[in-house]
């Protein structure tokens, strides 16, 4: 390896430190107008009348749009086409967009928003999953499966009740994970313009330009050939820019109608309303174990608070259970889930998409199991780690697993064996593990086409341009693209020009989500680069009088022993021999073995693994938790650029710790005299607390390399998986420090104090959910695990999912 594995400046590094990276709001076009959205002040209401005459007449206003201008719905998933760009009659959360004003500047547009008068008729607010279960009416959406229950899912992979009977101990625990938001420092922005050919261009801070392109064609009823979506570099995404956004549709329509460029930039308050963040999830885990510390079976129930729209929610709900089997051997598994609609900003995917919540519960419960069995938590985990290249109970195919080495690394480096359960009162260590996807196995809409494509252009000067639809959101996707092409062609990554995230210029890549880019784009890049390399090798071999397969490509040269030429010379010879040089490569994940309905969520070409030890200090007088140090080891398969890989791991640690200790998206009811509406407690950066540089502990990061054959040079993901173990490791460390269990996030000082008080009174030293409501889960789909016969299909006749729900 000449490029991979060596610490390097990222290829887009210079632009980022000079202020030259052009984010969406940095785009300024001649004659550009500005748009602002008017948002519903009510959490749940019907629109009876809109009067926008005064706004239209306001000097400087060019256009006012309302729901009647947008008859077509959209949604990121084919099963959830439930949003209008502007709500025509029914608003479902405070912040639901209802009108737009386009004016000569932002200030004028903002002033005109106040001139739009809308008569609303308030509906009962559904504020929580309990209220959603108790109130089938008023329906937030007519298409939900049962009352205000958006989706119900139930699967049984082997008879878990039977497994519990054969277990020595069965643990039952409830956990709650509060919702939180992505908080990218860049607020969403978009610019739409009509080009000289009359076609629409949309620049947007989106992680998914391809999906935005499809949605624009649908909503604006335009030919996809007339639309170009350019994903500008995202100023942080974390999943917050993976949904189709109202403002993208509306600003595009405005530009089409006016024939002038229009920009919209959300303010921070609006970003809190747009949300699509971590779902609040209530969980009930029942897990059976044998005395020697083997897991016999698990029954997981989740209740997911979806907010006002579908979004990714159906997938998020699957993810609250799909990956529970990917870390430890679990012979039998039952999973039941329900997502409800509530009158709050819609939830969606945030770093880890649906999996951090159950991981929090699972890893705390394992800590409890270890204690009860008198086993060391690390030993318990090592004993149960899944075997590489195996199938799970729910039919996921898992490849390389470097988790044992990860656990050994963090145990050794934290001096775990000498310190766990042995530290002075108030100080403790906690351990937890995690696993994550390296890209979702299936695309969001059903198709058999590649998930990623890369096109290469090489010319006689030796310059290489790589085109790919992948989106740079800070994670370093351009750098991965350049590095992989450079490694195959033996050139410097800085000699590769990347053109990315542009639906008019680049082959389709589905976007920066589910940690898919390194694996999928990387494999497509290898495919394309190998084709070019073959041509260049053949041409160079003739000149050098060696056989092509003996040639090496490295350091800008093509050579065999002492015979060599520069890459540019070789490229010139190849252009002479074959004509203009270019190649395309593509990648589609392998077909997953699961055949049952619902098997589409969870499969991935590979899984990354992480182990984490957190040290915590708890002040018994204040409940304040301080984390002085975190050790983390991540199985990355192979490191492409260690500088960026470490940044992804440490960024995950930061975000995980911030979620563990303080981040929460909470709401409150206004007093009755002020409408009684449910509003955000904190739609501002002043009140939404996140860790600062002063709060950030020292992080000891280890990259474990267990290459996976499905991945480019063996490289797995690093952007999401390392977040997963952090939250439960914090909770486990607090237990080690002061002997109290905080089974809900965030772990704020008041909860710690409450638990300490209970402990001092001799009550169960725990703070967390006390009961799990009755959820009308349907009869499960019965799918025998691989070791109990079956072929990945559900047992015929067991598919009563819909029948029961209806």
């Amino acid at each position, binding site marked *: 390896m000449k490029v991979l594995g060596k610490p390097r400046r990222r290829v887009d590094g*210079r632009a980022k430190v000079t202020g030259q990276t052009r984010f969406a709001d940095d785009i300024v076009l001649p004659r550009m107008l500005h748009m602002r959205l008017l948002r519903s002040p009510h959490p749940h209401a019907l629109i009876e009348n809109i009067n926008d005459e005064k706004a239209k007449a306001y000097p400087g206003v060019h256009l006012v749009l309302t729901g009647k201008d947008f008859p077509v719905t959209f949604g990121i998933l084919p099963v959830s086409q439930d949003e209008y760009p502007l709500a025509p009659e029914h608003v479902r959360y405070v912040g639901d967009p209802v009108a737009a004003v386009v004016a000569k500047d932002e200030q004028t547009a903002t002033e005109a928003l106040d001139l739009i008068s809308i008569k609303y008729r308030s509906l009962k607010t559904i504020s929580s999953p309990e209220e959603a279960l108790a109130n089938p009416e008023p329906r937030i959406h007519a298409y939900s499966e049962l009352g205000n229950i958006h989706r119900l899912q139930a699967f049984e992979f082997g008879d878990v009740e039977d497994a519990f009977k054969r277990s020595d101990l069965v643990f039952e625990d409830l956990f709650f994970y509060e919702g939180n938001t992505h908080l990218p*420092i860049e607020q969403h922005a978009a610019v739409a313009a009509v080009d000289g050919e009359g076609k629409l261009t949309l620049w947007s801070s989106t992680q998914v330009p391809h999906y935005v392109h499809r949605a624009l064609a649908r909503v604006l009823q335009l030919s996809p050939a007339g639309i170009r979506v350019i994903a500008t570099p995202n100023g942080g995404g974390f999943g917050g820019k993976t949904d189709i956004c109202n403002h993208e549709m509306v600003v595009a329509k405005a530009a089409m109608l006016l024939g002038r460029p229009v920009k919209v930039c959300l303010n921070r308050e609006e970003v809190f309303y747009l949300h699509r963040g971590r779902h609040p999830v209530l969980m009930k885990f029942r897990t059976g174990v044998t005395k020697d510390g083997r897991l016999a079976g698990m029954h997981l129930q989740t209740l997911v608070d979806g907010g006002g729209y579908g979004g990714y929610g159906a997938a998020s709900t699957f993810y609250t259970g799909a990956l529970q089997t990917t870390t430890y051997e679990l012979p039998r598994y039952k999973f039941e889930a329900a997502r409800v609609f509530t009158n709050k900003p819609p939830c969606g995917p945030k770093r880890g998409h649906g999996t951090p919540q159950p991981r929090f519960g699972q890893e705390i419960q394992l800590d409890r199991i270890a204690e009860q069995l008198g086993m060391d938590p690390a030993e318990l985990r090592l004993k149960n780690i899944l075997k590489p290249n195996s199938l799970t109970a729910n039919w996921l195919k898992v490849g390389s697993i470097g988790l044992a080495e990860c656990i050994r690394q963090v145990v050794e480096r934290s001096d775990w064996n000498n310190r766990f359960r042995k530290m002075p009162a108030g100080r403790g260590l906690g351990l937890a593990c995690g696993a994550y996807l390296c890209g979702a196995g299936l695309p969001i809409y059903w198709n058999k086409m590649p998930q990623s494509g890369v096109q290469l252009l090489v010319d006689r000067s030796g310059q290489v341009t790589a085109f790919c639809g992948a989106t740079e959101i800070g994670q*370093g996707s351009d750098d991965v693209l350049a590095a992989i092409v450079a490694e195959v062609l033996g050139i410097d990554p800085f000699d590769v020009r990347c053109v990315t995230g542009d639906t008019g210029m680049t082959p389709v890549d589905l976007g920066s989500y589910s940690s898919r880019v390194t694996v999928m784009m990387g494999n497509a890049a290898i495919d394309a680069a190998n084709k070019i390399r073959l041509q260049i090798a053949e041409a160079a071999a003739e000149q050098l009088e060696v056989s092509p397969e003996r040639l090496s490509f490295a350091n800008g040269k093509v050579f065999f022993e002492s015979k060599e030429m520069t890459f540019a010379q070789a490229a010139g010879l190849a252009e002479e021999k074959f004509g203009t040089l270019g190649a395309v490569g593509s990648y589609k994940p392998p077909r997953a073995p699961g055949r049952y309905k619902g098997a589409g969520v969870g499969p991935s070409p590979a899984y990354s693994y992480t182990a984490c030890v957190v040290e915590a200090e708890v002040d018994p007088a204040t409940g304040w938790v301080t984390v002085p140090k975190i050790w983390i080891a991540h199985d990355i398969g192979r490191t492409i650029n260690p500088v960026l890989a470490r940044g992804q791991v*440490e960024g995950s640690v930061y975000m995980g710790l911030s979620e563990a200790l303080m981040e929460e998206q909470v709401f409150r009811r206004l007093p009755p005299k002020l409408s009684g509406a449910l509003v955000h407690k904190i739609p501002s950066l002043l009140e939404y607390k*996140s860790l600062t540089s002063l709060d950030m502990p020292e992080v000891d990061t280890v990259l474990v390399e267990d290459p996976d054959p499905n991945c480019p040079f063996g490289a797995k993901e690093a952007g999401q998986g390392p977040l997963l173990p952090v939250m439960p490791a914090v909770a486990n460390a607090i237990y080690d420090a002061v002997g109290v269990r905080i089974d809900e996030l965030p772990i704020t000082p008041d909860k710690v104090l409450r638990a300490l008080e209970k402990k001092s009174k001799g009550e169960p030293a725990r703070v967390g959910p006390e009961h799990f409501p009755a959820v009308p889960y349907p009869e499960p789909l019965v799918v025998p695990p691989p070791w109990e016969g079956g072929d990945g299909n559900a047992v015929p006749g067991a598919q009563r999912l819909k029948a029961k729900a209806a």
Partner: protein
Amino acid sequence: MRRNVQIELTVNGEAAEASFAPYKTMLEVLREDLALTGTKHGCELGECGACAVLIDGEPKLSCLVLAVECAGKSVDTVEGLASGAELHPLQAAFADLGAAQCGYCTPGILMTAKALLEKEPQPSRERIKEAISGNLCRCTGYQQIFEAIEEAARRMSDESAR
């Protein structure tokens, strides 16, 4: 019609004039009237630090400063940090060591760090943490930012020793 105000100031060492609506912040004037979009916005409240610039050498949140207050003052932004084509040691260290991921908070942190190193050429890790505690970064977890500022301080002291 609103009347614009007009001011003269020094921006990145060069004399500049700007004409703008009187309610505009320095952040808005930099981005919208002086075409210096390197300075970012993230919260409108002075909480995130993305808009930090140097005003008469002091790090300030430009979203909380009215532009009219900057008449006659000197404003430094990320665009003025490099010397010609040569990156400032802070910029080079940030690029080399992974201190810029998405790059959105980076200009504000670079300017804050520049002010720190001018006052304290060899700051401790604790001083660095304090100095940038008003700049939120959601990507890096801060470690690589601390390391880049330390590395820049080393490179700068090596240069001045030469």
